[in-house]
């Protein structure tokens, strides 16, 4: 217990670490957007698709939600080359995270669509709204309001999940922490600084998303 924390050697690497935070956000944004598109398609299939397509979507969601992301990426990264598909670590991580996020976002959006009640549309029809008007004034505001909090929550989860990319030598925040660690051997100092960066990063994202939601859809999202 006679180790003293010395931050001076690590502090000069903070700009380098913050550069990694940008890649973290990039990876989170890519996987979130692709996952969102997957989720939107899947949720529509679950509502309107034929039975075999619905079963396939349910199988995809159940499988990806019940297996670890790390092993999914291992599988993509090490097994696909045997089938002749060679992926860079960044691509493998991005694909794995997108597929994984897609499963969660399918669930979220399915629940969001289900929260729309028949009566709302009936009331709009009774008041003489045309179909585009119903979609624009009734359906979309409802869905946006219902989906915004869980979607922004999922984005925060994506930001934290990107740390797994470090295991595949992608130089995002945690990956750069590994680099600085092997350079300075100030392990606890490096990782505690990185922990604080993650804390600030996710808090800033939560705050920005809450403000955006309040401004766009009048959603009262909680940051704490």
């Amino acid at each position, binding site marked *: *217990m006679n*180790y003293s924390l010395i931050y001076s050697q690590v502090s000069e690497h903070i700009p380098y670490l913050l550069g990694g935070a940008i890649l973290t956000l990039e990876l989170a944004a890519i996987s979130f957007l692709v996952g969102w598109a997957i989720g939107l398609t899947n949720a529509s299939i679950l509502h309107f698709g034929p039975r075999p397509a619905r079963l396939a979507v349910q199988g995809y969601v*159940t*499988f990806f*939600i*019940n*297996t*670890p*992301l*790390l*092993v*999914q990426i*291992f*599988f993509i990264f*090490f*097994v696909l080359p*045997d*089938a002749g598909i060679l992926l860079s670590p960044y691509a493998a991580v991005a694909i794995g995270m997108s597929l994984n996020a897609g499963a969660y976002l399918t669930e979220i959006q399915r629940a969001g669509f289900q929260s729309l009640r028949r009566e709302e549309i009936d009331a709009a029809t009774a008041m003489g709204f045309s179909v585009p008007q119903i979609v624009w004034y009734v359906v979309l505001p409802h869905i946006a309001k219902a989906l915004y909090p869980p979607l922004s929550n999922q984005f*925060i989860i994506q930001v*934290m*999940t*990107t*740390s*797994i990319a*470090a*295991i595949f030598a992608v130089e995002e925040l*945690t990956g750069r*922490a590994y680099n600085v660690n092997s350079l300075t051997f100030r*392990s*606890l100092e490096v*990782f*505690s600084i*990185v*922990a604080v960066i*993650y*804390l600030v990063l*996710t*808090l800033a994202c939560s705050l920005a998303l809450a403000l955006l939601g309040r401004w766009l859809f009048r959603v009262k999202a909680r940051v*704490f």
Partner: protein
Amino acid sequence: MWEQLLEDAPRFFGIWNLMFLGQALLNTLLLSYLGAAFGFAIGFSLAIGRHPRLYGIAPIRLLATAYVEVFRRIPFLVKLMCIFFAFQLSGAQASLFTIALVTVVLSAAAFAAEIARAGIEAVPAPQWDAAEAMNFSRWKVLTRVVAPQSWRVVLPPLFGYAVGFIKSTSIASQIGVMELTYAAKILNTRGFSALLCFGTILIVYFLICWPTKRFGEHLEARLGRRPKV
């Protein structure tokens, strides 16, 4: 690819490999269920320490809130590394398993605290007022009024989070804990095809996680149907 798979399969599922994987599976199960159980217990205490009408006295409340917010906003891998190096530098002799277990417990506590908070908040305000009017002590409010009503709300989501921790334990392979993912990596380095190694453990993970999640959903449907007190 497929011919090689068929050729490898009998050798891969030999008795020694199965024992090796069984040991790893046991470690994964111990790590996740034990970690979740301890973590949830601590999480409930945190939630009780955060509620102003229970034990939420200012300094405890602040500390508990800070702990929950901090531990929910740091990735598992970074927490694991911090705790790993903290153990190493403090000179404490702890096994890798213990270090991973501590990480799971500390993160599970933070997540469980949030679920328990939702459960406590589900108890309607008049119940609190009535208990206070009858001069119930804090402990009595907790055990006679809050706990009997909130466990229905708290219990089902815990299983969903437990699945999350089973999945997180795969990250413990990074510090070399002998669990499923690490075992698969070792078998892969020993020359078995990646498809067999990672495919097998993907299925094993699924077989652990899916029933746990289903059980939570089953409980949710069952407990939700009954009328609330």
